[in-house]
């Protein structure tokens, strides 16, 4: 019995309370423990990933109860990949939070950060639908706390919107789960798959409602139009490292869609006929369009990145909505890419906001303009899907995967046209922020509006920000993108194997349901 699978959940679940209890008043110690935990999580995640490379699926039966009666954690390629992606993202984000001093601008950043990781990792690992709900709630509530970290009226108001919207979503989640349970009598995902597949054909309406509501719940997380409205204000108003970490949260939605709609309501399951692809694809196309239009239309750099995140979710969802192994492989590659990219750009946006404010209007040259500009340029390239970074590869993969689909021309047209709009928007923003500052006609704005947000609560106690570390974090994300590009071949091999595993769910089902 290997307990490694549960460590990604238990470790942050221990470190979080420990930080609360023992080192609540020691910012430095909190930083040390937080980093140590994330580093350890990375090691665990790498180990877990290597264990899935041979295609094996590991099942961890909590409480030693057999599935489907107890809760199980399932480690397959997909969950291992998402776990690793999360921990890989978490490290630079944490470093940035420390480097920029964001972690000391409110209370409990590190504890909440650990809980946030616990929620996300749990969502990726669990094999139980209701347990997925619980971890969704853990990650959501931690995200509420992180989103309003540091306080301030605008952030709080945006936070209220974020929470309320998600509370409606959580209600929907429960309704969906209840519906599924009331028909199938089970909550375990593998068991659901078995039961849904053998459902009598004369009574499928209810299960279809449950399935579609569940999809909607995930679609909210994945910011699918028209359920994406919560995202711009939330991400733009969240502290930068938090927004960067949130880059993985939309992927939780994407992950859940992939998981549920390959395992339980897969393309071959008659009950789920026409529930996902039919509307998800057009919705994804519109999401991409809305995101890129937002990039061009926005007035503020934080929102710009938020819309970029929406656009990248659009691209990702296009690939998901095709529901073919090739497209899913592309989607998984794109998942990694868009996570790192959005995170990078949120950090860059913060570097900008800290120095000159986020408004896309001329300001005098800020310190480290060149360095930040370079980071922005790289991030923008990645987001727009321009070469040489992984966005281009990802875009090609998605377009290539769409080839067999009836919508191929629409998909291509939307992807390419939105790329252009994105390029225009990003170049406009970059030029305004980084270049126009050099224009001699630009003078500092007369009055900087005073804000009561983001100040360390106890300046005398708070450790100094480490600006170098902030840049290291941003460059680490960039390095991640470079690696993702250079290693595109092997990584794609892995995502293809993952997709193959997903579209042959018998293995998964058998691993979970077999008596130990």
């Amino acid at each position, binding site marked *: 019995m290997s307990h490694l699978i549960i460590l990604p959940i238990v470790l942050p679940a221990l470190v979080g309370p420990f930080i609360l209890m023992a080192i609540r008043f020691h910012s430095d110690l909190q930083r040390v423990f937080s980093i140590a935990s994330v580093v350890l999580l990375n090691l665990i995640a790498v180990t877990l990933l290597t264990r899935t490379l041979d295609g094996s699926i590991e099942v961890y039966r909590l409480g030693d109860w057999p599935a489907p009666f107890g809760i199980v954690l399932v480690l397959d390629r997909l969950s291992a990949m998402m776990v690793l992606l999360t921990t890989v993202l978490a490290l630079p984000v944490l470093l940035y939070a420390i480097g920029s001093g964001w972690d000391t601008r409110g209370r409990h950043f590190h504890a909440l950060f650990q809980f946030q990781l616990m929620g996300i990792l749990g969502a990726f690992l669990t094999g139980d639908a209701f347990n997925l709900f619980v971890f969704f709630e853990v990650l959501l*509530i931690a995200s509420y706390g992180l989103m309003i970290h540091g306080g301030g*009226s605008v952030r709080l*108001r945006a936070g209220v919107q974020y929470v309320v919207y998600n509370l409606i979503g959580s209600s929907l989640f429960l309704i969906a789960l*209840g519906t599924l349970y009331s028909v199938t009598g089970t909550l375990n995902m593998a068991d659901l798959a078995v039961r849904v597949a053998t459902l009598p054909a004369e009574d499928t309406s209810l299960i279809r409602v449950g399935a579609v509501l569940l999809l909607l719940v995930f679609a909210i997380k994945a910011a699918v139009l028209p359920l994406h409205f919560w995202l711009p204000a939330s991400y733009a108003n969240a502290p930068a490292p938090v927004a960067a970490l949130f880059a993985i949260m939309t992927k939780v939605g994407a992950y859940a869609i992939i998981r549920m709609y390959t395992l339980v309501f897969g393309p071959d399951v008659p009950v789920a006929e026409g529930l996902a692809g039919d509307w998800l694809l057009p919705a994804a196309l519109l999401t991409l369009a809305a995101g890129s239009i937002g990039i061009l239309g926005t007035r503020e750099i934080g929102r710009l990145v938020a819309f970029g995140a929406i656009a990248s979710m659009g691209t990702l969802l296009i690939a998901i909505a095709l529901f073919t192994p090739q497209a899913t492989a592309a989607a998984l590659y794109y998942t990694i890419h868009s996570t790192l990219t959005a995170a990078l750009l949120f950090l860059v946006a913060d570097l900008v906001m800290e120095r000159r404010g986020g408004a896309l209007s001329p300001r005098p040259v800020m310190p480290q303009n060149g360095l930040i500009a370079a980071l922005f340029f790289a991030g923008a390239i990645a987001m727009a899907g321009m070469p040489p970074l992984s966005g281009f590869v990802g875009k090609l993969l998605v377009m290539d995967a769409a080839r067999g689909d009836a919508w191929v021309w629409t998909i291509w047209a939307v992807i390419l046209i939105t790329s252009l709009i994105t390029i225009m928007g990003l170049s406009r923003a970059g030029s*305004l922020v980084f270049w126009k500052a050099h224009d001699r006609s630009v003078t500092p704005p007369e009055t900087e509006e005073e804000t009561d947000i983001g100040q360390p609560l106890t300046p005398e106690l708070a450790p100094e920000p480490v600006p170098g570390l902030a840049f290291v974090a941003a460059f680490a994300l960039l390095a991640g993108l470079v690696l993702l590009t250079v290693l595109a071949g092997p990584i794609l091999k892995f995502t293809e194997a993952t997709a193959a595993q997903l579209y042959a769910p018998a293995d998964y089902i058998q691993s979970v349901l077999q008596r130990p």
Partner: protein
Amino acid sequence: MELLLASAVGILTAGGIYLILRQRTFPVIIGLSLLSYAVNLFLFATGRLALNQPPILNKYAEVGYTDPLPQALVLTAIVISFGMTAVVLMMALSAYLASKDDRIDMTDSDAQGGEDA
């Protein structure tokens, strides 16, 4: 009986959603509470209704038990929605204290600057 419960769930839902669509934070939170009653009853009822058959094992007699699983799920859901309500309440309150505005919409805050390069 099923009809009563279903209609009660429907009315709670309707009331909750109507309040959620109001423009101030407080009625919205009240609406969320109503909605969460509805959802809890909904989830509970997925185990079907039974009278006088609590899932407390009786060592002495062969008796029927209602489905315990939805009850456990609802318990979890109640607790979680309690936590969520407390948080959103605190956020709404603090937002009001900070901005003197308890409107839930933020239609005013997004109109600023932005020029051509």
